[in-house]
């Protein structure tokens, strides 16, 4: 379950930022997870709940925004129907992923003072 490693990377980054700003506690983390990122939001939530114990994020909820996969033709901008062969239905061109592979830490909220 690589989601545990992803959760640990999140916690490491959030705690570093919190310490840098003299925060006593992280209250919330917001992430964006693409459908084709290879990370499952439900598993990440479970892993995060385990991994946050004993850290500055120990009671911080993890807010996950899921991003659907969006394929787009590099030539004409056309898009295939989901599950179809990955070729542009309009011009036969090559498709690129315009969204859905992100693994982003968007923002954190922390308590200072």
């Amino acid at each position: 379950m690589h989601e545990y490693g992803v959760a640990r990377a999140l916690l490491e980054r959030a705690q570093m930022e919190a310490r840098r700003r003299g925060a006593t506690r992280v209250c919330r983390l917001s992430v964006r997870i693409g459908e084709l990122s290879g990370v499952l939001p439900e598993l990440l939530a479970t892993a995060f709940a385990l991994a946050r114990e004993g850290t500055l994020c120990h009671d911080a909820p993890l807010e996950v925004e899921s991003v659907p996969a969006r394929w787009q033709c590099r030539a004409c901008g056309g898009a295939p129907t989901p599950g179809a062969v990955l070729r542009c239905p309009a011009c036969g061109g090559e498709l690129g992923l315009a969204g859905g592979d992100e693994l982003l830490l968007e923002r954190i909220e922390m308590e200072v003072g």
Partner: protein
Amino acid sequence: MCDSCGCGDPHVVPVRLQERILARNESQAARNRERFARAGVLAVNLMGGPGSGKTALLEALAREGDGRLRVGALTGDPATDYDAVRLRAAGVPVAPITTGQACHLDAEMVERALARLEWHELEYLFLENVGNLVCPAVYDLGQAVSVVALSVTEGADKPLKYPTMFRKADLVLLTKADLLQHLPGVTLAAYQDSLRRTMPRYDALLLSAVTSWGVSPFVEWLEARRAGLVLAGRVPAGASASLGGVGSGSYTPAPTGEEEMR
């Protein structure tokens, strides 16, 4: 001020980061990639399920190359160094990576293992990942190319079930071609179809590590990649092992021996 729950708590500070979560791994991967490129070594992230034939493929490559190809490997396994022992016996310089709890290699594991291998003189360095169709796809190791081994016994639905791994593959090797004759329900067209739904740049080769049938087109693929050729979306013309030309539900009779197929 808190702007998420509206409590107005002046001590809650929002910080916008918009950073890649695996940035640390990605920085290390970029350093690895730079080192490989400078040394002229083609690093191949070799992925696939347990038992898909990754190690057998490297053994076949060592035989096929017959000392001509300078191939080395880092082998990742949660426990044991069995793969490394096999490869060493096949004459492949290798450093094992025991990943313990981790279900995949990461860029730092690769960096540490490089210190245990004379890799600078190699042409091809295979990063044989942990047998797993999910987790290895998430971590960049600094490879130049990603190759996925998928055996004909695993089922043509696997690319659709594990789309992230196949999306990132530059090449899929359909392994264990010698078993096709025992699998009446299996068609190459079904594999080809599911790969075309998951790989934006479809490229696949059929081979058998046991008979070495189809290994030489893979060697050619590697050589072309190392030569820096851009072969995006290529369907090799006339390559007997290529899946590119299989358009119908039928497939050529299963390869039974090297001689017969050539």
